[in-house]
């Protein structure tokens, strides 16, 4: 039971697929123009993710290792086709709003990433919980971003007017550049919080956990005498940052 809850927490916060692992950015950026679209996309992905994790986990001893990726893709594509037909039949307005991005759930990195990283090594129950956790994390991230973009770009949240009439909404936020901006800011805020916690842990002397990038930025924001004297550390730090990203991107694979 504890393990199941840990999976949920892991997907929602610790390894949030969009904001921490940077997986599934394409649909996240594209459909977050409205909070309701974010929820719709998030829940469709959640459904596919839970089912694909379940099926792949059940078949994990049957599928030969060499052809596992094509096998996964076929499983996911079939599930997505079913989901697409269901949405088309029962939620036509959502189908209109999400359009091309529903079939594109097939190539959402989160789904293959979780299949490869988790479902093919764990029991069906844990895999389903992992799918729910990751799917909820995706839904929450999309909904928050969608609500922010809708609020700034249109003055509404979930279609209800929030900004007073006199305030002119900034249309750029519901256009493509706004997606990049909003996600950049959300991730920056999460980083800032992460650096704060890291600093506190460093002060308490918890030592190294192997995440050098976060560690480095934590040190960077506490200026040391050496940094005041010379420019050199900054360059080193700056080079550490892209490395951090490589870790994040590959993170899904390693786990």
């Amino acid at each position, binding site marked *: 039971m504890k393990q199941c809850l840990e999976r949920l927490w892991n997907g929602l916060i610790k390894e949030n697929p969009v904001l921490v692992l*940077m*997986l599934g*950015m*394409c*649909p996240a*950026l*594209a459909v977050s123009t409205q909070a309701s679209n974010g929820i719709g996309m998030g829940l469709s992905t959640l459904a596919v993710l839970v089912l694909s994790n379940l099926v792949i986990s059940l078949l994990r001893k049957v599928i030969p290792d060499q052809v596992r*990726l*094509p096998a996964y*893709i*076929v499983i996911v*594509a*079939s599930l*997505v*086709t079913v989901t*697409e*037909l269901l949405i088309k039949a029962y939620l036509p307005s959502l189908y209109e709003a999400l359009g*091309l991005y529903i*079939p*594109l759930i*097939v*190539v*959402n*990195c989160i789904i*293959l990433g979780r299949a490869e990283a988790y479902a093919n090594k764990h029991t069906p129950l844990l895999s389903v919980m992992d799918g729910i956790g990751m799917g909820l994390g995706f839904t929450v991230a999309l909904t928050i971003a969608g609500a922010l973009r809708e609020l700034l770009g249109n003055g509404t949240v979930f279609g209800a007017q929030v900004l007073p009439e006199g305030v002119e909404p900034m249309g*750029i936020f519901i*256009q*493509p*550049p*706004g*997606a*990049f*901006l909003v*996600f*950049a*800011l959300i*991730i*920056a*805020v999460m*980083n*800032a919080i992460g*650096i704060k916690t890291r600093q506190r842990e460093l002060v308490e002397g918890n030592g190294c956990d192997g995440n050098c*990038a976060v560690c480095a*930025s*934590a040190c*960077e924001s506490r200026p040391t005498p050496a940094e005041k004297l010379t420019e050199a550390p*900054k*360059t080193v*730090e*700056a*080079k550490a*940052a*892209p490395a*951090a*990203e*490589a870790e*994040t*991107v*590959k993170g899904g*694979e390693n786990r």
Partner: protein
Amino acid sequence: MSSNSLILIIVGGALINNVVLNQFLGICSFLGVSKQMKASASLGAAVIFVITIASAVASLLYDYVLAPLGLDFMKTIIFILVIAALVQIVEMFLKKTSPAVYRSLGIYLPLITTNCAVLGVALTNVQNGYNFIECVLSGFGTAVGYTIAIVLLAGIRSRMNEKDIPAPLRGAPIVMISAALMSIAFMGFGGLSF
């Protein structure tokens, strides 16, 4: 069909409806590989190859197999299999001919399969009811747009390495802010007309 509309398909795919900056397809590799100019250029070339061929094959399959048999709903599954096979071929080819490029692309080469741009273009083509030539051109234009975007971003990022960026913005956020500015610039192409 005039040659004008064919040019419009290419330019529209490459600049006006830029696949990365406007439609958000292929973001994973766009953010992941754009660290080095060389790797992004070679990924761009691989993507041009894969997308052009994939849209041609997908168009033929759809027109002559899926549509006559009424298997329209199978298109997602069929297309993704075609793409996966193509990527496998490109991977084997690159491994043999230029191992250096193969290594620098690393995990992102097999991930072209899950590059939404490839499947996205194939599906959009079918949705728009393009014929064979239009499909190939639109695939090519889209892929050129992808290459332009990723090479430009790689250029920006190589300059960013030297700059002192506030700690929370390091890594992904600053790259996405750059992408936002590029996207604003590309919105300017919306004014192009023929």
